[in-house]
């Protein structure tokens, strides 16, 4: 976009330019491309995985209990003969769902509160900042534990707790970005042409900080998955027969000392790959949105 002066109307604009720039960045940075492929695989596993797996994730078969990885059972079987591969694939949907739901929720809470705080200033800003500070005063995982314990042991509360502990992060970024744009030219122009304050906030400021918020969402997605898996590892949230990565690692933990490594290893590895993928993707997206902050 540096040679705008040459032919302003030949420059690709809007979506076309974004796609081209994205393709350039991915081409430049193989790692981001790789992360994107992983991301597509994870989403596919979440969407159609349950229909493709070779075994019922809940069906036990005691004759085949605690068998190592083989051609029939790629990832082996657990202590009551359930197929670990099927369980790992089926669990993707629940884990990704928890992460996506909590990130969407925290975007609605933290993002909107932060934008309002940065735009209106005054009391709104004071209240939002103090709420964020209060949350920051706790070690985050401990706070999430406390919230789930207090509200009750359900998946909804896991989502809520993960959203709440991420609140300060979103509120701060959104507040800073909205604050910078408060007196920007386009805001003044919108106000001059008779737009109400709420309309300016939602229709002018919010779309402008969306790219930064999306990067933030991708970066916190990995943390959300880790947090949810950690909570279910200590026995909160998802109930045992349900396939979920954190619980599966917890179930396999006892067998790690006696050498049956596959029960805990494969769900743990799936967890690791998912988090790794979201982190890389977040870094890549940041490069697309904000080339200056490139690492």
């Amino acid at each position: 976009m540096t040679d705008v002066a040459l032919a302003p109307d030949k420059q690709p604009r809007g979506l076309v330019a974004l796609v081209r720039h994205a393709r350039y960045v991915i081409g430049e940075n193989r790692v981001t491309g790789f992360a994107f492929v992983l991301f597509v695989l994870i989403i596919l596993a979440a969407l159609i995985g349950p229909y493709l797996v070779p075994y019922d994730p809940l069906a036990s078969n005691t004759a085949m209990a605690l068998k190592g990885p083989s051609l029939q059972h790629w990832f082996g079987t657990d202590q009551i003969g359930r197929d670990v591969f099927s369980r790992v694939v089926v669990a993707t949907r629940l884990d990704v769902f928890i992460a996506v739901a909590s990130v969407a929720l925290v975007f609605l809470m933290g993002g909107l509160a932060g934008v309002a705080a940065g735009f209106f200033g005054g009391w709104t800003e004071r209240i939002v900042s103090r709420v964020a500070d209060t949350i920051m005063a706790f070690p985050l995982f401990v706070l999430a534990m406390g919230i789930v314990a207090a509200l009750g042991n359900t998946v909804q509360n896991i989502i809520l707790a993960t959203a709440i502990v991420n609140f300060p992060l979103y509120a701060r970024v959104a507040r800073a970005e909205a604050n910078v744009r408060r007196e920007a030219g386009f805001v003044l122009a919108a106000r001059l042409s008779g737009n109400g304050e709420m309309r300016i906030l939602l229709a002018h400021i919010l779309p402008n900080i969306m790219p930064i918020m999306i990067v933030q969402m991708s970066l916190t997605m990995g943390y959300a998955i880790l947090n949810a898996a950690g909570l279910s590892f200590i026995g909160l949230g998802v109930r045992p027969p349900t396939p979920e990565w954190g619980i599966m690692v917890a179930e396999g933990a006892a067998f790690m000392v006696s050498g049956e490594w596959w029960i805990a290893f494969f769900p743990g590895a799936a967890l690791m790959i998912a988090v790794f993928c979201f982190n890389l993707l977040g870094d890549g997206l940041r490069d697309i949105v904000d080339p200056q902050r490139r690492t």
Partner: protein
Amino acid sequence: MQFGRYVGDLARGDLGNSLTTGQPVGTEIRTRLPASAELTLLGLIVSMLVAVPLGILAATRPGSLADHACRVIATAGVSLPVFFTGLILVYVFYYLLGWTPAPLGRLDIFFSPPPHVTGFYLIDSLIAGSLETFVAALKQLFLPALTLAIFSLAPIARMTRASMLAVLASDFVRTARASGLAPYTVIVTYAFRNAMIPVVTTLGMVFSFLLGANVLVEKVFAWPGIGSFAVEALVASDFAPLQGFVLTMAVMYVALNLVIDILYGLIDPRVRLEA
């Protein structure tokens, strides 16, 4: 009303009684806190001993092996679930290699705990002059502390590298170099001291993560600290210990932030003048 009574009890140091054990929560937390503190601090020290030099090396020699190692660790470290690292370490070091004892608590059952002085087994056993107990406690501590260290390595190394890079590019470092000071003096005395502030800030954040990760690591290694105490209470829906636990954690974290603020003043006299 209920809250008022709770706060009143709290002011007298009474955290209530556990429903499952009937013990006062306060004493329970007091006996278990040293176990957690010993583990967390050792993990933090190990990770600083590795991460800070690694970050400095990476910053002073961009593109070198240390730089690449730093980048790989920084990306991989944040993606590893801490309970998963712990289990892998148990499998490799206990099951495959047999170098460490079974991941069950602070001390092998053949040893009796050293007389209580600080509650830290490593220090207490040295005070009691029992080297055997010291080694046994260290063996038990090795894996969980290593797990926590791996977990906290990434942010410290990344921050050290970034802030060292910024400082090394500044004018006063150039002047120091031009004045002919030895590279070691320039890096350690001049650059590192100035690069410390962001690193110390990161330490506060890392400590917050560590307090959370502690809960998971204690569960993996059956460590009798306050984290596993809270998890047991959680499973039994026992509320008073959990309240006490969250409160203790918050107090520890706030206290740590205070220590960090004081450290700023010690490292950088300019901060002291402003305050």
